[in-house]
């Protein structure tokens, strides 16, 4: 039986997020003090040794990323928190922002010290105005107490663009421009915000940092999957009994999450598919539920851990309908910069509508598969590369849902 392990959500429900004294009483900012007393290279080595990988979806080794920015020579560097949580079915960052804002500030301040930055930004999605207000209050309290030292943080509000979750699009948005991704390389740790070395990490990634310094890299590396240690905050939605959040070690299986913690499916129905990682994730059929919620374990079956969203579909759901809705999402959210994504997402949506209207031919299914391959290979950024993934996995595992609608 799977059990929760609350590391990232350690203070949820235990402290008042608007009282910095609560956070201090819980040992808050001790890790920052420890970090400030450490040699920068030792500090980065500690994060590397913990094997913490980014929780935003790409899974890059956090300490290695910091090292690139630390080694870059510049008069100014920046630390950015990606709080543009737009992946449908996901609200784990909102939970952290609303319940433990100081842990985020502490993680960012530790990063700032490690790379030699004095300015930070929290890019909070426009759909979370309440979280943004909590963050602003937390920053004001932290400045009042002087706990952040020379490190200054500002909140910037997004305005409803999923693509801004992509780190270079996010940087463009902070610069006051449309959120279109930049060509990489150079990567942000070398040239990011206003051309300066910049670390962009997800909310959940930063909140792990104080804990790693408190308990040690070895302690952290021993939790969960060896290749992606620690926990993952999961948010359950769809046809599952407990539509709520859980934080589990990354060795927990999908089955344990849905049937153990999640309480199984509503109305005693059978599971048809589960989509992990948000709307850009792959659909997983029932016979692969014993896969662990680890980055590499899910990659191995052609799925992704992504944001940690767990979207459960019962036997009555039609993948042709659900993937058509998802295709509309991507057609709407494509920024339009590159042709494979701009045209591909729109055509994918059109063809799926045609199939759902009973006007599709077998050739349309072949066309969708080819279009998906082209988009995933040739799109400019992760949005267009991942956009075909839900449909490709649904066509692979549930072809009957589409074939039944063909003319």
């Amino acid at each position, binding site marked *: 039986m799977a059990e929760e392990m609350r590391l990232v959500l350690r203070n949820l429900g235990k402290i008042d997020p608007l009282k910095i004294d609560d956070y201090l009483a819980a040992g808050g900012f001790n890790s920052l003090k420890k970090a400030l007393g450490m040699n920068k290279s030792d500090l980065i080595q500690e994060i590397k040794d913990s094997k913490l990988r980014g929780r935003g979806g790409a899974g890059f080794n956090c300490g290695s990323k910091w090292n690139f920015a630390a080694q870059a020579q510049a008069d100014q560097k920046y630390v950015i928190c990606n709080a543009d*949580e*737009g*992946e*449908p*079915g*996901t*609200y784990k*960052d*909102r939970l952290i922002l609303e319940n433990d804002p100081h842990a985020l500030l502490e993680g960012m301040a530790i990063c700032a010290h490690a790379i030699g930055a004095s300015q930070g930004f929290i890019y909070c*999605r*426009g*759909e*979370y*105005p*309440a979280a943004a207000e909590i963050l602003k209050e937390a920053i004001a309290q932290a400045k009042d107490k002087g706990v952040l030292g020379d490190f200054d943080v500002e909140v*910037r*509000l*997004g*305005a*409803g*663009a*999923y693509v801004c979750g992509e780190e270079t699009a996010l940087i463009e*948005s*902070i*610069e*006051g*421009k*449309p*959120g279109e991704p930049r060509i990489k390389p150079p990567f942000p740790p070398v040239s990011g915000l*206003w051309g300066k070395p910049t670390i962009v990490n997800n909310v959940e990634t930063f909140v792990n940092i104080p804990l790693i310094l408190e308990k040690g890299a070895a302690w952290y590396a021993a939790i969960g999957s060896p290749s992606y240690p620690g926990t993952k905050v999961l*948010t*359950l*939605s*769809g*046809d599952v009994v407990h*539509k*709520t*959040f859980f934080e589990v070690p990354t060795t927990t299986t999908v089955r344990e999450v849905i049937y153990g913690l999640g309480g199984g499916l509503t109305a005693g129905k059978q599971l048809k598919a589960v*989509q992990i990682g948000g*709307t850009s994730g792959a659909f997983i059929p029932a016979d692969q539920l014993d896969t662990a919620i680890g980055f590499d374990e899910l990659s191995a079956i052609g799925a992704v851990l992504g944001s940690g*969203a767990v*979207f459960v*579909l019962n036997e009555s*759901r039609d993948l042709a309908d*659900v993937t058509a*809705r*998802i295709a*509309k*999402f991507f057609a*709407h*959210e494509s*920024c339009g910069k590159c042709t494979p994504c701009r045209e591909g997402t729109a055509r994918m949506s059109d063809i799926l509508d045609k199939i759902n209207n009973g006007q599709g031919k077998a050739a349309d299914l072949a066309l969708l598969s080819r279009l998906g391959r082209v988009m995933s290979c040739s799109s400019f950024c992760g949005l267009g590369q991942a956009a075909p993934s839900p449909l490709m996995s649904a066509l692979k595992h549930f072809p009957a849902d589409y074939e039944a609608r063909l003319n």
Partner: protein
Amino acid sequence: MDYQKILADYVEMPGGLIEAFHAIQAELSYLPEEAIIQAAQVFGIPAAQAYGVATFYSMFSVKPRGKFVIRICESAPCHIAGAAKVVAALEKELGINMGGSTPDGLFTLEFTECVGQCQAAPVITINGKPYTDVSPEKISGILEPYRKNI
């Protein structure tokens, strides 16, 4: 409306155009052409570039909107939870279609993608405030305080 007064708060902020647009929308529910032109002048960028920002982001509108903007999430978790029924109920209740505004200038109906409240789908927001587990039966009760124009 004196846009200059609002814009002045953001002109020293690097990249502050988006924050400035949020501030104007907080007052007017949309970004009038004159506000965009003045913002471009204040930030020292071409008007086309400021307009590009205003139209890139889904939360900004260059068309007038009602005082209360109702956004209905249509992302997958809300979709399977019955968002279409909520859309139909809201259209009927307000007598307008999605994208439209009521003649009294009070309400606008818009689609949105995920607003991160998927624990209780379907979800709508009114001027950013989320309402969860929405059903057609709950609509008139949710709108009641806004109709009194508080």
